[in-house]
């Protein structure tokens, strides 16, 4: 439906590099993809494929050495409240603010709204993630899953053009994780926000995404871009969807490894 429309976010031939203490590392090499409005776009790849770096580049924290990233046609040069990041780390909430203050802070700091209005919007989104009872708690009194819910509420309260999620459920236990995935999909059903979601879990990618970008590691390059129905269906070739993804991501490595062993 959207194929004719111009994309919300256009990533074109983006090469990203970063410096460690004694190396210059190329994180991604000439990666291109488009995200359309209301997409649940997932970047999937093993560790070292530069997916988090790519997300931070969309966030404006890292400048590409080659290529460009455009949001609604305008090139991204610095971080801004139109692209809100949700991190994997539980410490993304400011511990000196309560749950409500954490969200209201984001709204006032960005100049979106002030005082009362910000509080009301904060409470609205806290209710959306089911934490009304904990609105005046400090983050350290919450469980990991609850903290991530607050972070998601904060991101959504900003009503950004695109929500950037960097493995937000990776540090949670498996049961909480499944529940959070379910909740995220329900929230999406509610407001149809656009989200760019990074993960290294194939099952999570299938569950969350409507479109999945596959990256291979060292440096990250696009291996493919596929649609997901949300279920791990058995395809025409008689293999489950997840196995097909696994094959696409790892077949090359397996081939290389077997060659070196000969």
């Amino acid at each position, binding site marked *: 439906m959207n194929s004719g429309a111009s994309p919300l976010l256009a990533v074109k031939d983006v090469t990203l590099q970063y410096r460690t203490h004694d190396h210059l590392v190329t994180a991604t090499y000439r990666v291109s993809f488009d995200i359309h409005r209301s997409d649940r776009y997932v970047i999937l790849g093993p560790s070292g494929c530069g997916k988090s770096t790519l997300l*931070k580049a969309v*966030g404006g*924290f890292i400048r590409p050495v080659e290529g460009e990233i455009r949001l609604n046609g305008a090139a991204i040069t610095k*971080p*801004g*409240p139109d*692209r*809100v*990041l949700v*991190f994997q*780390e539980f*410490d*993304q909430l*400011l*511990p*000196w603010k309560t749950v409500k203050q954490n969200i209201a*802070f*984001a709204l006032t*700091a*960005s*100049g979106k709204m002030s005082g009362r209005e910000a509080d009301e919007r904060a409470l609205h989104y806290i209710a959306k993630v089911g934490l009304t009872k904990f609105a005046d708690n*400090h*983050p*350290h*009194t919450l469980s990991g899953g609850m903290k991530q819910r607050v972070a998601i509420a904060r991101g959504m309260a*900003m009503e950004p053009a695109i929500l950037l999620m960097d493995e937000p459920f990776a540090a949670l236990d498996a049961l909480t994780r499944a529940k959070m995935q379910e909740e995220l999909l329900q929230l999406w059903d509610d407001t149809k926000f656009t989200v760019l979601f990074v993960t290294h879990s194939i099952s999570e990618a299938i569950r969350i995404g409507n479109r999945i970008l596959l990256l291979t590691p060292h440096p990250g390059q696009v291996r493919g871009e596929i649609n997901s129905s949300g279920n791990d269906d058995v395809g025409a070739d008689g293999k489950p969807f997840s196995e097909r993804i696994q094959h696409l991501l790892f077949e090359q490595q397996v081939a290389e490894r077997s060659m070196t062993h000969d």
Partner: protein
Amino acid sequence: MTDARQVLTARPDVTYEVTNTGVGVVERPLSLYQRLANHGGLRKVLVLVVLALIWEVYARWLANDLLFPTFSATIVAFWDAFVTGELIKATWYSMKILFQGYAAGLILAGLLTAFASATRIGADLLEVLTAMFNPLPSIALLPLAMIWFGLGNAGIVFVLIHAVLWSVALNTHAGFRGVSPTWRMVGQNYGLSSFGYVTRILIPGAFPSILTGLKIGWAFAWRTLIAAELVFGANSGGGGLGWFIFQSKNSLEIPSVFAGLLTVILLGLIVENFIFLTAEKMTIRRWGMQT
């Protein structure tokens, strides 16, 4: 698979009904004695009482008021000096100078840290200066201060600034550098101005370190002040606690010396256990940044 069947023991599935009857105690309040024993303050008061008793008994056995007065004599001397207002005046005098030095030290530390956070050369300057001056006891600067500023309060304020400045600047700077990269990114993400970034992310994020710096700075300043007063003595406005101790020694009123020392201890305890502890409880403990 046939191997597995031979190795594993076959058992049927089992499920149980779970009820809470017959568990005994699920949750019950502790007895009064247990709760009292868990009270840290109460246990420490008990230790203090025992120490005071030992002091009293030993001093009576020694029976030499010039060397070691009894606990009761010290309390009497303390009470007398308190009632005449002498002790309060001396304490007030010391506190006034202390606050001047502490405040000036904090302002300078703030400026130095701001410069260090803004530029790399500033950071180098701060690190070199603190490395040089932090190990130097403030009291060692006293002879120099006497030459530069004369025998007035300015000399004491100068050594107090030295006592406060380095530890506060060092801890604040370290605190800023230790602010988690995630919080930094959160601050940038929501488009904070650089002033907002410092006041709303960096300072609260570094608050545990800043508070540590303030505490160390206070302790250094307090010890330095008493020592400096012993040397400087009195001037126009009267004398501080150090001077009170020195004077009492000169007139061989040893119980008053002990009373002066007791006052120094009490004030130190009050500031550390009430003012700083309250500040900690209201901030970093409430925020879960320190347990």
